Each structure stands twice: as structure tokens, then as C-alpha cells.
């Protein structure tokens, strides 16, 4: 029987790696963005990713900046859908690190949370991020996800007050996704000042892994973020390169620079 309070595969994996002293790296790719897009997953894993976030593109990505908007549009224009992306993942098989799907709640509701989570598991996806599902609306999904063995990671933002932060940390599975700044996804020139403060606040209420995301684009920023958090999520910096035509080898090289920066700490 599944213990719905227990953390699943993503959290066990991330905790184990963190406990060896390693700073975690979770790169993002928009599912279906190019033909043969799953080759990016292998490249990410080879470059030292600890988990990979796979975006299921939505027509109206209200929390994404231009880069991921464009990637979503490109994927949808190619005919990408939840079903096809999950079929691609099933075909690609185990890439060696956990996969975490991310998408907007409309796509979860489309077939219903139960069917959605079951489909994720069948495709080998063990985690889920839903940026427009705040903790107070998540009740419909948390139990279903846990029962299916999908770690639903909740987001915390610099504007989140402490009591909410406690609730988010308690109900999140896999990790707590710390949104580094008040803004949308997209590359930034520097790590936001709010990143360190938010991470400190989350760490004071939980020992779950804390991953910092939004805006982290360079090795320098990754190193700095790694000093505060257990690891980083890198999305737009990856997808800008993909949109500019960079292939799996190019991305392996880019992510290797981030890996080295994180390991230097």
C-alpha cells in the first residue's frame, strides 16, 4: 500500500544526492520543441543533471517570459501534446535521472488529476510542477499525485508570508521550488537579492531539498545560488540556446559549465 505522506522517487533521489554534499542541477526542456527532442534528456544527464524538468506546453503560459513562451509556441506548432510528449518519453526509456513534468493546471484538469498522474507514471515521470496551482487550491491534486507516486513540488515566492511557507513546505513533495524573484521565467543579468532571503526562510521551516529557479542563466549565478539553496533550476538559458538551434552536444557543454560551477563550492 502506498503511504501518501511519504515522499516519492524524486525526493529520495534528491535527498540522497544532496546528502553527499552535492549541489543539485535541474535543467528544463520544453517537450516536443524539436524533432528528436528526447536526445536533450540524455545529454543533460551526461552533463551531470540530478533531475530534469520536462515542460508540457500550454497555449497560455501566464508565468513564463518570452523564451519559454516561444518554446511552447514552437512545440505546439509542431503538434506537441501531453499525450505525444509522454509517448516520446516512454519510448526514450530511463535516462538515468528522475523526470519532473511541469505544466499549467488546465492540462492536468483536462483528463482529470487521476488520469493525468497515472499517465505521467506510465511514461516514467516521477515528479510534477504546476505553477498556477497555489497550495490553497492544491488539495484536489496532492492526494491523487501522492497515491500515484508522483512528487508534486509546490512553489514558494519572495512574497509568500511565513505561515504559508510552512504549509507549502509541509505539503510539497520532491523539493520546494523557490521562485528567486518577483517576475516571470527568463534570463536575468544577476541573481535577484530576494533569492538568498527566500531560501533562508524556506530552510528555516523544512529540511526538504530547496531548488532555486527563475532567471538563473550563467555559471556565476548558479554558483552563487548553490551557496544558498540545495540546487538550481535552469530553464530559459537552456531554451534560448535550443531555439537558436543548439543541439544536444551544445547543451551538454553548456550544462557542464554549470555543473563545474556548482561543484566548485
Amino acid at each position, binding site marked *: 500500500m502506498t503511504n501518501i505522506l511519504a515522499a516519492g522517487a524524486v525526493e529520495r533521489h534528491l535527498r540522497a544526492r544532496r546528502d553527499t554534499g552535492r549541489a543539485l542541477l535541474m535543467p528544463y526542456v520544453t517537450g516536443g520543441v524539436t524533432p528528436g527532442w528526447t536526445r536533450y534528456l540524455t545529454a543533460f544527464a551526461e552533463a551531470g543533471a540530478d533531475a530534469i524538468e520536462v515542460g508540457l506546453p500550454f497555449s497560455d503560459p501566464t508565468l513564463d517570459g518570452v523564451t519559454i513562451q516561444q518554446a511552447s509556441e514552437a512545440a505546439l506548432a509542431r503538434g506537441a501534446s501531453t499525450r505525444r510528449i509522454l509517448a516520446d518519453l516512454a519510448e526514450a526509456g530511463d535516462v538515468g535521472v528522475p523526470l519532473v513534468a511541469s505544466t499549467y493546471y488546465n492540462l492536468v*484538469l483536462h483528463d482529470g488529476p487521476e488520469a493525468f498522474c497515472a499517465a505521467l507514471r506510465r511514461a516514467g515521470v516521477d515528479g510534477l510542477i504546476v505553477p*498556477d496551482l497555489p497550495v490553497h487550491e492544491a488539495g484536489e491534486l496532492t492526494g491523487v499525485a501522492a497515491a500515484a507516486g508522483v512528487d508534486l513540488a509546490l512553489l514558494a*515566492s*519572495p512574497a509568500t508570508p511565513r505561515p504559508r511557507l510552512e504549509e*507549502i513546505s509541509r505539503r510539497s513533495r520532491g523539493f520546494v521550488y523557490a521562485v528567486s524573484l518577483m*517576475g516571470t521565467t527568463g534570463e536575468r543579468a544577476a541573481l535577484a537579492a530576494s533569492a538568498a532571503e527566500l531560501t533562508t526562510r524556506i530552510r528555516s521551516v523544512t529540511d526538504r531539498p530547496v531548488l532555486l529557479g527563475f532567471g538563473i542563466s550563467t555559471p556565476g549565478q548558479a554558483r552563487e545560488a548553490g551557496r544558498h539553496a540545495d540546487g538550481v533550476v535552469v530553464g530559459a538559458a537552456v531554451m534560448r540556446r535550443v531555439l537558436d538551434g543548439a543541439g544536444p552536444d551544445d547543451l551538454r557543454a553548456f550544462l557542464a559549465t554549470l555543473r563545474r560551477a556548482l561543484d566548485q563550492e
Partner: protein
Amino acid sequence: MRMAPPWREPVPATGTMGEPRPLGRFGEYGGRYAPESLVEACREVDEAFRQARADPGFAAALAELLALHAGRPTPLTPARRLSQELGVQLYLKREDLTHTGSHKINNVLGQALLAARMGRRRLIAETGAGQHGVATATAAALLGLEATVFMGERDMERQALNVFRMRMLGAEVVPVTTGSRTLKDATSEAMRHWVGATGDSHYCVGSVVGPDPYPWMVREFQRVIGDEARGQCAAELRTGVPDHVVACVGGGSNAAGTFAGFADTSARFVGVEAEGGAGAARGRLGVLHGCRSLFLQDDDGQIIEAHSIAAGLDYPGVGPEHAHLRELGRARYVTVTDEEAVGAAVRLARSEGIVPALESAHALAWVIRAAGDGELAAGSTVLMTLSGRGDKDISTLKELL
């Protein structure tokens, strides 16, 4: 034998169009599906709105702005010649006569006062037809606030006059070039912008959509339409209450405000959507722009772009309270085509000397159709909200006629 009515009998009004359940639930619809970064901002708006509602000073200040600046109350005009032609008694609630030319000003003055009270210095808004944008720019100028209005590039072309009006009023108009380049995308972009500006800016949502408290708050600010009409109907109509209350529905704010004034009566509610933007009539359950409601979607769950000649109805969803009223059978939602709407606009112009907004013309087109096919019984009384005037649509009409 009594014919089954095409809609269920009105349910007892208790429990409808009052305060929603916690976190803005209307039945299973509504809610606050905002990204975590906006949840605190939504809570602040909710708290400020509740305090303002309980403050007689706020109500007095708003009533004064509505009277002195917006020109309220608006008249209830019997459409005499058209009524004779149609065989029903049609009354028009004249929101087209407000300052800036549509009902949007009612909501905006309320939210702008609220924003000032919250110490915000800037209003952010999305706009489709440009009417909400113009109203926002106007209220901002009046109260000494800044205004940033997001507008789809396609709408900027077809509503060029309103773009100029907004800029003349001192607002910044930001073109939105993503997706269908209409209202849906302008709304997404306004939300993205708000995430980075919650400290000093208020997001002035233009319809009964968005995360809680917006659907409820906007309906309350639009309730003035229904409340005034209720009193006017009581004075003018032999029956006191009309048999039917009809309004066009984009997101549904003029309809919600109108319906709210008659929630506890036996009047039958009809919301008229554009054929190509029928969220209530043809949408399925989803979450977009912060609320759970009905949205047009494809088989994969992607939101479908709406298509309407009326930019203000070019939205693939509908406010959560309408989804709820529909489910309860308290209101029903019908659609009319672009051609029917244009025909109705011309007919109103020639029979009553009123050129309506193309959005409002949708409501009239249904009245004309329903009077013709007997859905509206001969002699029945119909209150229709004429949500706006047609000046903004003249160039569109010129190309068609």
C-alpha cells in the same frame, strides 16, 4: 398542456449572486488559481475591498464619482418603434450614455478608488475593444494615477481610435504580439507584468474573470447597472419586474451587474455570447487567468482562440459566476453570429436613433431572433443592457456596410 420552457424555472434566489463561498467559489467554479507570486497581492485586494465595502465613506466617494464624472444614473429607454415591430416591450438600460461610452467605467472607478486607498500609484489593465482601457486611462487621469494598458496587436488595429484615446489620456499602451494577439493574450501579458509590479501597481481587471476576489468584486462594482434598472423598471413597468433580462457576455461583467439587480426576482436571465467566443454555451471545465470556469479548448486541452467581430466578446472563456448560474439553470446562454449582430446594430440605429457597440448589438440580435421565433412570447417585457455605444466600431461597420 403547458409547454416545457426551454430553461428550468428560476431557482430560489437565495444563495445566488451574493457573496461567493471562501476563496471566491461559485459552486465548483472560481477560486484563486494565481501563481504563488500573486497570491499575496490577491489577498491584499480582497482585504482592501472588504474594508472599503464596509466603509460608508468609500461608497459615498464612489457614488459621487459615478454621478459627477460618469454621468449616472443612466436612463432606461423604452425602444418604442422597435418594440412595436417585434411585438414585445423592449427597454434599454443605457450604459452607452456613460462617460467614455460603456459600462466599463463603473468597475474602473471602483477599482481606481480602491487602488488609491491601497496606496498604489499605477493601474495595470488588459483591454480588448479598448473600452476598458479607455475607462482605466480616464480613471487614472482623474485620480492622478498612472496607467499601463496591454492590448493585442490585432485589436490595436481594429480599435485604433481607442488606442489614440488612451494615449491622449496619458496612458501607456503596450502592444501584445503573442498568440492570437487579442484579449486572451493581453490578459496573460497583464498578469505577467503584475507579477513584477505588485508593490506599487494595482491590476484593474476589466471583467468578472481572474483570480478571487476579481469576479466577485467586479460584479459588485457593476451591480449599479442592475440596481438602477430594478428601480426604473419598478417605476415604469406595469409588472414591476421584466419577464426577461438580457445582456451580452464577453467575460460577463455587464451581464453580471445587470443580473445581480434582479437575482431575487422571477425574471429570466439570458446571456448572449458571440458565436465564435461562446465560453458559457460551449466551453468545458478548465483553469485560465486565475479562475476555474468554462473555456473553449481543443481535444488536447489547449485554449482555442475566439473569433468575433466584437473585440470585447473575443474571449474564449466566461466568468465563473456565469458558469455557475448556467449550471443552476438560473441563467441561460445563447449565441449569435457576426452577421446577426451587425444587422441588429443597423436596425437599432434606424428604429431608435442609437448606434450600439457591436458587443451590445449581440444582445439585441438575440432579442430580435427570439421575438421572431416565438421564444419571447408576444407582449412580454424585456430589459436589455445596452453596454456601450458604437463609435469605436464605425470603421469596422464602414467596411461591411
